[in-house]
């Protein structure tokens, strides 16, 4: 039976999640040097265009059509049989099938956009387009099927991933690490560590992400009831806790709390609560949020400089590290009292759930690492992934798009 309230909430949530992509564009765009800001905005926006089309043509079918081990196949290609009026009960019994489809489309869009942070300021636009399309098709779609699709083997194993900690954040975070490693460091990084060119943009982006994340997590309840309310409340609590704890860590370590730090912390908290949002209550959410900042802070300010890879905007350090913590914390704090359809975690007497979460994380890391590497190498062979040195120094706005963001005169 179609429920009008549920349908309305999922449509609103879909719009909220879409807004996260422009939000991410500003979050990332503010962090790069001003000669590259348009290239980052452009990459985020073109993903909205390309993946919206990929999704309705075959992406949704590969991810969610039932059966098949590796992915869903082409039975629902072009939305064939995906009704705008009737529900598909295995996914969501009270909303039209196409409402579920368009909600999921927004996840498929933002996931590859997250990777941009790793190779920002040095990737050729043409190669980026091909890489993104291949990555969405051969990494995101299969993994989405395994965790969320009917017949997906990680779903059958009992993995808990409420709103995409594994499928979205660990997945994109590992892809970010791989691309940062193979594309190499930006030029002149040692003599001149680039400062973010517009921190207010970063804060604006964080605000839009936080706002949109209510659709991401509370919308993942797929109904407009108590489960959505729980997800909404724990999402806000985790983001707040993580933003605060990042500021406190900086205060103790560096003497002053920073705006950039609070923004980074809030996003890390949102990432960490994503897989847990429908399974944990508010105090665990606070613990998850308070602690994720410590992990991510160490990843971006201690481990990254020590290892020397250039994950320009910390897509790995925030999304993968925060995502792994969230997935494991779900295995610790999940409770059937919150969601009877879920499971109990380690702290509620079920250590097996923690093991399942661990396996899911390991499988995601392994599959994404290898696949992303292969796709990168194929694209590099045919197109050349990195811009030449002169183009990098002049900036991608001018060399890839023939426009610039800011004028100096007038």
């Amino acid at each position, binding site marked *: 039976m179609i429920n009008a309230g549920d349908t309305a909430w999922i449509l609103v949530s879909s719009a909220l999640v879409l807004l996260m992509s422009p939000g991410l564009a500003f979050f990332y765009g503010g962090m790069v040097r001003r000669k590259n800001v348009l290239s980052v905005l452009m990459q985020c926006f073109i993903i909205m265009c390309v993946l919206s089309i990929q999704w309705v043509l075959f992406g949704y079918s590969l991810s969610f059509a039932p059966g098949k081990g590796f992915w869903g196949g082409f039975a629902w290609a072009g939305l064939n049989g995906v009704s705008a009026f009737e529900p598909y009960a295995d996914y969501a019994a009270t909303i039209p099938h196409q409402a579920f489809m368009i909600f999921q489309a927004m996840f498929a869009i933002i996931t590859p956009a997250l990777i941009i942070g790793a190779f920002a300021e040095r990737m050729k636009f043409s190669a980026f387009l091909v890489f993104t399309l291949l990555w969405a098709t051969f990494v995101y779609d299969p993994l989405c099927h395994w965790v969320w699709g009917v017949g997906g083997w990680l779903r059958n194993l009992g993995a808990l991933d409420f709103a995409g900690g594994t499928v979205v954040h660990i997945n994109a975070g590992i892809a970010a690490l791989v691309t940062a490693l193979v594309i190499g460091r930006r030029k*002149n990084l040692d003599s001149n560590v680039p400062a973010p060119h517009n921190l207010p943009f970063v804060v604006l982006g964080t605000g839009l992400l936080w706002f949109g994340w209510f659709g991401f997590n509370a919308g993942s309840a797929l109904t407009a009831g108590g489960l959505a309310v729980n997800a909404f409340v724990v999402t806000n609590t985790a983001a707040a806790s993580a933003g605060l704890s990042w500021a406190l860590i900086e205060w103790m370590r560096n003497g002053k709390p920073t705006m950039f730090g609070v923004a980074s912390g809030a996003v890390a908290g949102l990432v960490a609560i994503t897989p847990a949002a429908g399974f944990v209550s508010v105090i665990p959410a606070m613990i998850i949020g308070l602690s994720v900042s410590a992990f991510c802070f160490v990843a971006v300010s201690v481990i990254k400089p020590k290892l020397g890879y250039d994950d320009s905007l910390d897509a790995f350090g925030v999304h993968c590290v925060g995502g792994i913590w969230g997935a494991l914390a779900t295995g610790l704090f999940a409770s059937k009292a919150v969601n009877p359809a879920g499971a109990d975690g380690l702290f509620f007497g079920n250590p097996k759930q923690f093991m399942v979460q661990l396996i899911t994380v390991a499988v995601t890391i392994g599959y994404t690492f290898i696949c992303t590497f292969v796709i990168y190498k194929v694209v590099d062979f045919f197109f050349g992934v990195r811009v030449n040195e002169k183009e990098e120094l002049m900036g991608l706005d001018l060399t890839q798009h023939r426009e610039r963001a800011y004028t100096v005169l007038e």
Partner: protein
Amino acid sequence: MKLIIAIIQPYKLEEVKEELYKAEVNLITVSEVLGHGRQKGIAEVYRGHKETGNLLRKIRLEIAVNEDFVEPTINAIVRGAGTGETGDGKIFVLNLEECVRIRTEERGQVAIG
């Protein structure tokens, strides 16, 4: 006393600064300017409308030095900013009439360093 004005590529600023420090030239003023030389800039396109000969961002350095520092300063800028490509920039050397340190009202060569 001379005033050295150099126009360089923005991304070369850090290297030029390092070379200047090595040559013990520590006092510089930096500003952002627009310009183009033989390179003629890069065509920008806005909604299909092409604007050729656009001005490119450059960095302008101003350094006031005493005579013995003129050659070391020029050499440092050339080492830091040179790539052998078009667009590396220019160095202008001008005679400097007077120099006053505002705090002490000292004038001339002592005021420069």
